[in-house]
């Protein structure tokens, strides 16, 4: 769980590292959400509505400069909320932007339009429309990913779920999302322990078939464990009086700052949609 750099190795190491990174990210999000920045102090319903309105504005905007401005708004909100900017950009946005850039790059040459240049040696033509569309893609992904992560990094998952109720999401779905998140952490740990234990008992290289068997058997054990656990959880819920009805303690109260923040987000989103039409 520490932030040590682990050596990249075979598939088992990569799987364990991936599982550890997921757990670390979940813990980091919960830690940041407990901070005292601007976003953390806002009502979760305001954050959900406000950030989703900005994400929608990014998706609806037809001008690259407007999308870039909304990306800037997201960064400014992260700074105001004292969220770790380096983590946000390097761990989240940049990875996504790098992925999207790889997809956007061919569009520069493949999109038909007005030629603005040619790549030396290979002779590929760069079109203005290709550059524009690649810009849209990268900027949109950067902006929406940043805004999405602002929500997660500034709000406890339990509060996000409570806020979903304000948008008429069925209560049973909200409860399923909450339980799933909780048990993801448990199963991530179980999977990591399983791979670690197997790795510690393995001497020498494994053949391809053995490695595949190891992974599928691990998945099978985890599946059986999950379903067994669901039976136990159900019995525990019944023992506490659960009869199929779900209730949430909804104690959010809107303060003046919340109304101002909500109006600001809605205003920025509407302005962006109008300017980017």
């Amino acid at each position, binding site marked *: 769980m520490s932030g040590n750099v682990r050596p990249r190795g075979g598939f088992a190491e990569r*799987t364990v590292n991936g599982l550890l990174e997921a757990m670390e990210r979940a813990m980091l999000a919960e830690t940041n959400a407990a901070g005292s920045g601007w976003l953390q102090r806002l009502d979760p319903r305001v954050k959900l509505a406000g950030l989703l309105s900005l994400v*929608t504005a990014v998706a609806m905007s037809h001008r690259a400069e407007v999308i870039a401005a909304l990306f800037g708004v997201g960064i400014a909100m992260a700074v105001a909320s004292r969220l770790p900017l380096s983590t946000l950009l390097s761990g989240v946005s940049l990875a996504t932007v790098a992925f999207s850039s790889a997809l956007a790059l061919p569009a520069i040459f493949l999109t038909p339009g007005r030629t603005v240049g040619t790549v030396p040696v290979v002779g590929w033509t760069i079109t203005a429309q290709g550059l*524009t569309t690649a810009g*849209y*893609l990268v900027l949109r992904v950067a902006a929406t990913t940043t805004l999405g992560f602002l*929500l997660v990094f500034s709000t406890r998952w339990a509060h996000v779920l409570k806020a979903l109720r304000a948008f008429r999401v069925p209560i049973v779905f909200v409860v399923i999302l909450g*339980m*799933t998140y909780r048990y993801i952490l*448990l199963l991530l740990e179980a999977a990591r322990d399983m791979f670690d234990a197997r790795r510690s008992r393995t001497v020498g290289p494994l053949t391809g078939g053995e490695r595949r068997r190891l992974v599928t058997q691990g998945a099978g054990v985890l599946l059986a464990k999950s379903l067994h656990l669901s039976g136990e959880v159900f019995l525990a819920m019944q023992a506490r009086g659960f009869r199929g009805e779900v209730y949430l303690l909804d104690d959010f109260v809107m303060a003046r700052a919340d109304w101002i923040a909500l109006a600001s987000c809605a205003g920025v989103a509407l302005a962006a949609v109008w300017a980017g039409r």
Partner: protein
Amino acid sequence: MHIPDGYLSPTTCAALYAGAAPFWFVAIRRLERTLHTRLVPRVSLFAAFSFVVMMFNIPLPGGTTGHAVGMALAAIVLGPAGAILAISTALIIQAFFFGDGGITAIGANCFNMAIVGSLVAFVVYRVLAGRAPLDSPRRVVAAGLAGYVAINAAALVTAIEFGLQPLFFRDASGAPLYCPYPLSVAVPAMMIGHLTIAGIAELVLTGGVVAFLQRTDPALLAATAGRGVMAPAGNSAVASGGLRPLWITLGVLLMLTPLGLLAGGAAWGEWQASDFSDPASRQVIAAVSLGQPPPATPPRGLERLSSVWTAPLRDYAPPFLRSAPVGYALSAMFGAGLVILAITGIAALLRVRQRAGTADDTVSL
């Protein structure tokens, strides 16, 4: 295959949210009816499992690795309704928490993977597995192929969604606003990767886990196996339903046994001592022995041993019955009954010994 934000237009996203909503609604209603209070823990835990299993690096032939979605596995264990909810839940958490898939594209990702993927996987699995027993290798093949076809179907739908974007959404200069690749590029680009790496990863995971469950916990495969599917030994509830066709077949075969009387000639090597001295029988023996005439007298050993035991229903013709066909059928019933009685007796004996062994183990603990 997780579509990020910015690749699909808001109109497409809204249409796919609307397309996914009825499936979510029906899935919740259906599961509430069948699972009632078990719905929440069952779907939650399976969604958590799906989330974790999506992170597994699966070694593939050729030295590369790939990730699976687990949609076919969910459909095989939970059924289509459970799979739709579990995979959707995992995808929503991935989008919110890990940025894997966009927030505006949640509807699209759920539609492609949770709905199209799960339904295709379920249909392919049920068609290919047929009524094969739960521990049949055919189910492993069916599961693997269901995973392969399902992820490719989901990829094809995703590619079509991508490919439609430049047709409908462009800015004033003609530049595509969202995914820039037309169908002619999006479909092959998506399908090459999924027909090879991602498809194989899904095939390996689904087939491998089903094979593992067959050995360790076949009951987990029973929910979607269909009616009358034979369970492996030990699952008497399913087995009793599955044995009915066998009993009917046995009954029909017993009734048809007199047809054997229509067959002429004699079975080679089943001669009696008296056949060696009977001229008609000698001719038959010579005819089926490449013209080689039998010895003039029966071999002494054969003559001596053939008189050791006289069968009560000799030649399948009970002496108290005049009708040969009825005697034949009655002999068949008597023989089949004896076999069933013997097997039942041995099974009962083994059960008693097993119980005694378990009791000893308990005492020794």
